[in-house]
């Protein structure tokens, strides 16, 4: 039985673009532009898309590291209590911060170079009531061991660690307050391929051990496919396709997803497919194209695509729910 942990409704994050003599806001970067998304407890939800499509912003805005412009984020607790996070005062967020955590991309900037690992990690614990130093050391030590590192490493400085180790420490930090949902923002993208696999396995292990839910942000669809239960594909701040990870590859509905999949080089000579080469670049999120945001690059675009904005509709493939927003899908829409 699938239960939501987080519900996003009409979620928008705009960044003002300032210009002119008085530094007035002349427009907005529509980084996230109307996202409806349910994240289910215990799943791994992949969020894929090209650079700049708003993945990171979405992830951060859920944690309110960036203030969302519009929309609601509702947290559903294990006991099914719903709390709307977006309307909370900053200080009332604290109990929920424990439940939502984030792992970042860059193993170099994700640790404070001036502090030992323990020094970096102890403050959050302190804040959330772990008052004795012994206890804090124990928690951190246990977690380090959980990510296959030595307990003693907590007294070392970040520069003594390799990229993969740092990333594990980043995971320890996310885990230290026993969260329910972790946003992994390109958590493995900066790692060498040989290390990447270690971290991926670690993440899966931890998920099992701790009943975690992941929002797994990446631009690498092969990783998403391997790791995730469901995948959401974003383009210019919107979700264009959302479905079970197997279905995305096997029953691709959106032309963008199709192109994306075909563009990914596969290390398997037997699986060589013809690339679909998209014309041009991703348009600017300040002035997204009218109609379907993807239409200028879409090889299949029709006239309707230039004028009408498609909405995310529900279809069914392989017996699973499959959402996509495209005018050109000839499957029957399933009403809610």
């Amino acid at each position: 039985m699938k239960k939501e942990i987080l519900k996003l409704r009409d979620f928008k994050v705009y960044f003002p673009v300032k210009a002119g003599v008085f530094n007035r806001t002349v427009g907005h970067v529509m980084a996230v532009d109307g996202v409806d998304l349910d994240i289910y407890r215990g799943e791994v939800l992949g969020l894929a898309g090209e650079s700049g499509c708003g993945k990171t912003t979405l992830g951060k805005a859920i944690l309110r590291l960036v203030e969302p412009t519009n929309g609601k984020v509702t947290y559903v607790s294990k006991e099914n209590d719903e709390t709307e996070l977006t309307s909370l005062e900053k200080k009332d967020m604290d109990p929920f911060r424990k439940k939502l955590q984030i792992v970042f991309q860059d193993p170099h900037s994700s640790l404070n170079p001036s502090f030992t690992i323990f020094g970096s990690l102890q403050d959050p614990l302190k804040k959330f009531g772990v008052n004795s130093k012994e206890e804090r050391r124990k928690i951190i030590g246990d977690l380090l061991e959980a990510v296959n590192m030595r307990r003693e490493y907590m007294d070392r400085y970040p520069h003594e660690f390799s990229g993969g180790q740092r990333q594990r420490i980043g995971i320890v930090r996310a885990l230290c307050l026993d969260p329910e949902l972790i946003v992994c923002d390109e958590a493995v993208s900066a790692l060498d391929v040989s290390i990447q696999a270690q971290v991926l396995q670690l993440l899966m292990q931890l998920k099992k051990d701790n009943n975690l839910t992941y929002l797994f942000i990446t631009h690498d669809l092969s990783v998403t496919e391997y790791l995730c239960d469901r995948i959401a594909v974003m383009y210019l701040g919107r979700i264009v396709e959302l479905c079970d990870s197997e279905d995305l590859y096997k029953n691709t509905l959106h032309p963008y997803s199709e192109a994306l999949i075909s563009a990914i080089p596969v290390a398997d000579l037997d699986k060589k497919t013809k690339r679909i080469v998209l014309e041009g670049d991703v348009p600017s999120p300040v002035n997204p194209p009218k109609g379907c945001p993807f239409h200028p690059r879409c090889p299949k675009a029709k006239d309707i695509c230039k004028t009408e904005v498609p909405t995310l509709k529900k279809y069914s493939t392989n017996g699973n729910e499959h959402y996509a927003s495209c005018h050109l899908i000839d499957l029957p829409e399933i009403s809610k």
Partner: protein
Amino acid sequence: MTTYIAQRLFIFFPMLFVISFLVYSGLELSPGDAVSHMISPELASTITAEQLDAMREAYGLNQSFITRYWIWLTSMVQGDMGYSMAGGVAISTIMAKTVPATLELSLVALFFSTILGCSLGVISALKRGSGTDNSLTVAGMAGVSIPEFFFGLVAILLFAIELKWLPVGGRLMPHYETVWDRIPNIVLPSLVLALMMTAGAMRYARSSMLDVLAREFITTARSKGMPEWRVNILHGFRVALTPVVVLIGFRLPLLIGGSTIIEQVYQWPGIGSMFIRSVRGSDYPLVMTISLMYVFVVLTASLVIDVLTALIDPRVRLGKN
């Protein structure tokens, strides 16, 4: 670009206003007033209180602070800088005499220090780690470490008094007709000033050049088979120039301020020595005008720098900001 300039101008004037008010209030707090200062200490006891009061009235010093500030401000806005209190000379006259002197000195020094600084800096960067680099660094560092008045005085002792190659100071002499006549007078002060500035320009040019030389496009240029000079100058220095120009721009006000002491050492009749005199004499109108002029120059210089940077660097010129 234009909006950017407009934006800067939009801050510019309120800034001038606030600064003028602060300076005016500050001067108000300092002891005494212009009138009591006009009286030389040795004769002061011979002036009666009535005479002082009459003078205060004549200069409008008996009005309230705000009124005086307002009068000063309005006439300033109308382009009337008012009169120096000490001698009653129109401030515009004083400025007309002193500003060119300082500009002359500063610009010559700026010119030399920039040329020298940039070229030595570039050489130093290209020969990084070599003996040349090290000795240039040490020499440059020494240049900024000697108190400038001390340097100036020793230079006078050496070149003007012992060797008698150059005049001890001053800017003009009655028989000076051509520009050539004036060169001996400017040599020492501008050189001393320039040498002190060179070090800064040099270090900056060096590190900027090193920065640029480590950038990938330098490798690109090499990979195209360009000769070294072209790589270093056309690709390297051209890009390194942007921050150096910024530096020079920031130096200009520094230089104008920094020439104060050198002006004093070399009896150079510039704005710096005038400023010291007016500060010592609590000559409010003059202090106000000169300090605002300094502020104006600094603010304008940074504006000009931004424009210049934009001209040199197309990223800024065409980019939004």
